[in-house]
């Protein structure tokens, strides 16, 4: 598991020295306000809210990945497992062939280190378990009988992951399968590899 320890060292180092920090409550409140506004705008159509959050995250991810790469200087991940570690530790570095280390990624941007687990035997799917989630501090889902079944409060994270990995030519699908806000024991995101994206060629000339 040397790639795991390497990823966590990168994440730790960058978090300490190269990241501008903001007040966690400011983030929580800002994000909460966005979700609340979306719920209002879409008339509590939570499916639509999930979709919008994912889309916002996607656009954020496409930019965030560049910042991650610039700060961490990591290269491409050799395989999906390495990517998973990187995402969790750094959450920034995705890599070619594979993966960005999501672990590193989460560390750099949220100072959270999710656990990577539940790999499928073909190494194409894994879960991220969040022990803590700064986005969801102070949050209680609306008591309308539906939000607990339909709204994924932190769905923006799925989009961020999707957007950032796509930029390093890894197409994935991500969704939450449980959330402590809904009364589950853990907050778990399921990430599956769809395919590696090929290099694009310039358009043919006549």
């Amino acid at each position, binding site marked *: 598991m040397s790639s795991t320890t390497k990823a966590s060292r990168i994440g730790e180092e960058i978090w300490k020295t190269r990241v501008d920090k903001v007040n966690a409550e400011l983030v929580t409140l800002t994000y909460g306000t966005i979700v609340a506004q979306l719920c209002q705008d879409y008339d509590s159509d939570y499916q639509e809210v999930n979709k919008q959050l994912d889309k916002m995250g996607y*656009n954020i991810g*496409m*930019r965030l*990945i*560049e*910042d991650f*790469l*610039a700060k961490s200087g*990591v*290269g*491409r991940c050799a395989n999906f497992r390495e990517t998973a570690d990187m995402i969790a530790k750094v959450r920034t*570095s*995705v*890599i*070619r*062939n594979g993966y960005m280390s999501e672990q590193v990624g989460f560390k750099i941007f949220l100072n959270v280190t999710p656990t990577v687990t539940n790999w499928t035997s073909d190494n194409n799917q894994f879960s991220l378990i969040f022990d803590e989630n700064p986005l969801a501090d102070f949050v209680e889902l609306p008591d309308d009988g539906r939000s607990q079944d339909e709204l994924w409060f932190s769905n923006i994270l799925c989009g961020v992951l999707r957007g950032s990995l796509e*930029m*390093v*030519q890894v197409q994935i699908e991500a969704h939450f399968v449980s959330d402590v806000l809904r009364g589950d024991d853990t907050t778990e995101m399921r990430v599956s590899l769809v395919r590696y994206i090929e*290099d*694009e*060629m*310039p*358009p043919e*000339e006549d």
Partner: protein
Amino acid sequence: MPVYSFYIFDRHAECIYKRLWQPRPTSLAGKASRSGSDLVGLGQTVRSTDDDAKLVFGTVFSLRNMVRKLGGEEDNFISYTTSQYKLHYYETPTNTKFVMLTDLKSPSMRIALQQIYINLFVEYVVKNPLSPTEHPGGVGVNNELFEESLEQFVTRVLS
């Protein structure tokens, strides 16, 4: 240490930024076309900068792929030299390619290109919330902050 030109290509193989400094020596045009592609006729003396960008892209793209075939997925080419100019290359994991043409005497510009990516491109283009995430035709890259800083970087730091 003259810098002749600088190009950025995005992951869709499009040239999203180009900048020319010194007028290239006239013979450079011929050299570039020969190294770029044999298909370009030798009689072609006047080429637009758009054509140049396409040739440069074709060259670095083929060269990169060849290098990876021979040296493994992790391998990357850094520069090549002709009798007229030196081409420096840097590629990010997101497939954005930075290319710089300089004179023969300049040292490796790999670090310089990396600095341009980290300190100028990411800071002024990617992190600009109002610039689009994709840059068809160079939209969003050609902003004042980026251009000025690039100018300063090239004139002050590199020369």
